[in-house]
């Protein structure tokens, strides 16, 4: 009997000591991070997550790729409606308006403050911060992967027509393309005209020329913003692009046709393309042996006072309805990503640019931009910081912008297939885009953008 009693006592003591020992070996708090990158980029994100998990013992981030930006937003919405949302989610630039009205997030600046992290928001490049900030300047999400559009040009081809520098104005581009054609180049410049190219052809162009895409300062000042690209300089731009296309100076290249424009440029088939700095690495890795090429800022029309270009990419949102422990982890994770050393890792392994001045300076001091594969990427920073953002060049904040981009693709295709004139096509774009905006406004009665 006493033996049994003693046994129990021993067991109890044992149990007690294990219970006391638990805090020392505490399981790290797990939280989810969903992102929309795939392939090479997804592997870099996975490494980033691993680095975070190894850098401390209290939290463990579980990073899951959802394939692409659209799917990430769709899956997050579905998960949120079912109460199973991730703690941190990567949402692309054009999803910002939708997120702001969702009521489903925890403001990033509040989160950091509550958890004792001091973030210097003025350290972000203004062009990047303003894109994601509210109209009052609060940061609801953290800029993550960022890029901007650049012109890629083939130095060898331009040397043949006696040029050593990239054209700076669209007038020069027109003349150079003609000269390239006369010099025997079949495809002087490649573009594509799907929804995706709304970014470099319409949004970046409008920002550089300080032209609005929509009223109400591109939607920043209210849900009743409506498109107005059918009466800005953009009309002339599309007219010129179409003219050059008809003259055989521009070819359309897309994956559906067999070769996308980045491949067309890297193989030396086409001599000029307009695309994201994020493709800088791809072109470098896949280029034809010995080809000389460089990047330059997107051209503007002669006599234009150049403004900053827009940031593209995605930001990190923290969703509501999570525990304090998970929020602590999320804050630590965001702080980790904010670190200049992470910026160096991130930009080296992807084509994305650093989002903070300190990150950029850290990379510069490390000689990042002096060496061959990365040289040229600083042009993206120059383009983004060409001016203080104006009311119009902060960004584009329109509801259901994905659908408006789709409409852009549709109308550009109609224009290039000679189904409608340039003005008719852009008028239809505005008309259909406005219907989308109106519907968005009706869906959120009485709500305003923060």
């Amino acid at each position, binding site marked *: 009997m006493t033996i049994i009693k003693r046994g129990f006592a021993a067991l109890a003591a044992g149990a007690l000591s294990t219970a006391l020992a638990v805090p020392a070996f505490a399981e790290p708090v797990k939280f989810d991070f969903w992102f929309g990158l795939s392939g090479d980029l997804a592997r870099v994100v996975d490494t980033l997550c691993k680095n975070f998990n190894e850098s401390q013992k209290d939290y463990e981030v579980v990073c899951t790729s959802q394939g692409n930006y659209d799917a990430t937003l769709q899956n997050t919405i579905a998960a949120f409606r079912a109460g199973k949302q991730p703690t941190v989610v990567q949402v692309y630039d054009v999803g910002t308006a939708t997120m702001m009205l969702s009521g489903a997030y925890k403001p990033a600046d509040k989160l950091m403050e509550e958890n004792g992290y001091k973030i210097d928001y003025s350290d972000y490049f203004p062009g990047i911060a303003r894109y994601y900030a509210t109209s009052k300047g609060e940061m609801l999400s953290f800029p993550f992967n960022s890029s901007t559009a650049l012109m890629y040009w083939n130095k060898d081809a331009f040397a043949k027509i006696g040029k050593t520098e990239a054209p700076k104005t669209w007038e020069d581009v027109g003349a150079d393309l003609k000269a390239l054609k006369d010099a025997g180049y079949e495809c002087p410049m490649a573009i594509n005209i799907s929804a995706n190219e709304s970014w470099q052809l319409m949004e970046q162009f409008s920002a550089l020329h300080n032209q609005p895409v929509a009223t109400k300062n591109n939607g920043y000042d209210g849900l009743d913003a409506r498109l107005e690209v059918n009466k800005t300089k953009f009309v002339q731009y599309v007219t010129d692009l179409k003219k050059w296309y008809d003259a055989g100076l521009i070819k359309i290249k897309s994956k559906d046709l*067999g070769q996308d424009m980045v491949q067309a440029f890297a193989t030396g088939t086409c001599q000029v393309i307009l695309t994201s700095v994020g493709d800088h690495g791809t072109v470098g890795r896949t280029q034809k042996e010995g080809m000389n090429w460089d990047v330059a800022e997107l051209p503007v029309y002669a006599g234009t006072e150049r403004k900053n270009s827009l940031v593209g990419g995605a930001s990190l949102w923290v969703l509501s309805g999570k525990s304090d422990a998970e929020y602590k982890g999320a804050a630590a994770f965001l702080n980790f990503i904010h670190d200049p050393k992470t910026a160096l890792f991130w930009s080296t392994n992807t084509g994305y640019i650093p989002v903070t001045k300190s990150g950029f300076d850290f990379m510069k001091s490390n000689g990042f931009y002096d060496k061959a594969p990365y040289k040229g990427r600083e042009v993206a920073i120059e383009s983004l910081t060409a001016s203080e953002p104006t009311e119009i060049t902060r960004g584009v904040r329109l509801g259901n912008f994905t659908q408006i981009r789709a409409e852009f693709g549709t109308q550009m295709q109609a224009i290039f297939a000679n189904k409608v004139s340039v003005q008719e096509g852009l008028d239809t774009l505005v008309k259909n885009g406005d219907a989308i905006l109106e519907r968005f406004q009706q869906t*959120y009665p009485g709500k305003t953008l923060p």
Partner: protein
Amino acid sequence: MEKRVTFGRWTIGILFAVPQLFLIFTFFYWPAGQAVYWSLTLQQPWGGGNIWVGLDNFRSILANADYWNSITASMIFAGISTGLAMVIALVLAALTDRQLAGSWLYRVVLIWPYGIAAPALALAFRFILAPEAGFMAVVNKFWPGLWDPGLDGADAMASIIIAFSWKYVGYNFIFFLAAFQAIPRSLIEAAAMDGSGVIRRFWDIQFPLITPTIFFLLVINITESFQDSFGIVDIMTAGGPANATNLMVYKIYSDGFKGLDYSGAAAQSIILMLLIVALTIVQFRFIERRVHYR
């Protein structure tokens, strides 16, 4: 005197039916009811709330020229691809049934296309029909600019019709071959002894006897061309160029999931459902009359 097996109490019958009713309710009526409800409201995607708008969603969809364009495109797609898939499969099955040399091989091989998932076969066809890289590049070399699905809506429509028909030729072939083989040999042999040729035997004996199969496949093909076309359109054209291949089912997806307009997409799916129901009723009402069941 007919012998009938009945349950003594009606409750037992109900009890046996309950599991089935429960499944149908959970997986069909409940989601369908939800779609009807959504189509009558404006839903905020994040679940923040909704407003009752009555039939406004339907009104704005039916007033939209793009939507009518989408209906027309779907009809053209359904008509041509069903016709192609059925005629080709019928001819192939008739030939295979004639026990020509190597017909055992065709019997196996021709079934394969149906086993390939739509996105995979769309990827293959995207390559085959790419104007610059694939098989069609050869055609474009001789007639520059002849084939351009990137800008020419008719070419893009032809691409998705070819891909879809290719898949359903395999499906239809199985059924046609089975139907041909169910016809008693003696009938055909008798006709042959009476001196009728291959074509004559086909039209007078085989074709009338397989009309039930033809009718079945017609209904299935048309229904599937409205629904199963999604993967092919998504990979090959994404609805372009200029909405030329924006079929109804693809428009529902892009408006609902990409555009987060759940209410508009719900209303469109209700319209699509009604359209398929109506088409099926028409087929049963007018075409089935000409079908001879044995």
